[in-house]
């Protein structure tokens, strides 16, 4: 169980880091949001479930899974709200042929 936990945590860390790198390198708001929102949710989900597996069957892992479920619901909604705000205030998406 602990080995599985560690594997999940390293996967989570991998996604968190790639999300951050994606946020820096992408040219446009929407692409950055795309990278950051998804990798972040999955990354923290994996870290939390990894820690829950590491702990075995105790109260803390139940709380961890509840927190992970909460993040699974709220983080995409928050990113959606931000994307909607950008869209409403007229931010155009980045197009490839505009700036080679």
């Amino acid at each position, binding site marked *: 169980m602990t080995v599985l936990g560690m594997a999940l945590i390293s996967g989570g860390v991998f996604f968190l880091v790639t999300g*951050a790198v994606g946020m820096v390198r992408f040219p446009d708001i929407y692409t950055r949001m795309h990278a950051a929102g998804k990798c972040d949710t999955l*990354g923290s989900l994996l870290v939390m479930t990894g820690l829950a597996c590491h702990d075995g069957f105790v109260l803390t892992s139940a709380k961890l899974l509840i927190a992970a479920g909460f993040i699974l619901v709220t*983080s995409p909604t928050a990113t959606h*709200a931000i994307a909607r705000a950008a869209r409403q205030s007229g931010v155009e998406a980045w197009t490839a042929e505009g700036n080679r």
Partner: protein
Amino acid sequence: MADTFFLGAALAILAAAMLSLYRVIRGPSIIDRIVGVNVIGTKTIAVIVLTGHLFGRAELFIDIALLYALINFIGALALSRYFERKGVDVTSERAR
């Protein structure tokens, strides 16, 4: 052995948070900064839970992480609602 692994994971996530901090500082428009803050928020949740396990008081830190997730979510919604009405002026220069 587990503790050093948690410590390494927490430090890696903090380094990733520094990267998104760069986006918060550099971001040409307000929306980039909101996304950056939101990303740093979710990353700090993972760091809080990891340090909770490092310090041995996992229950306490999970509650803190849950609270932090709540506040981060509410903050992101409030910011996006405000800037939706106020409008965003995207400067033309492309952040490389």
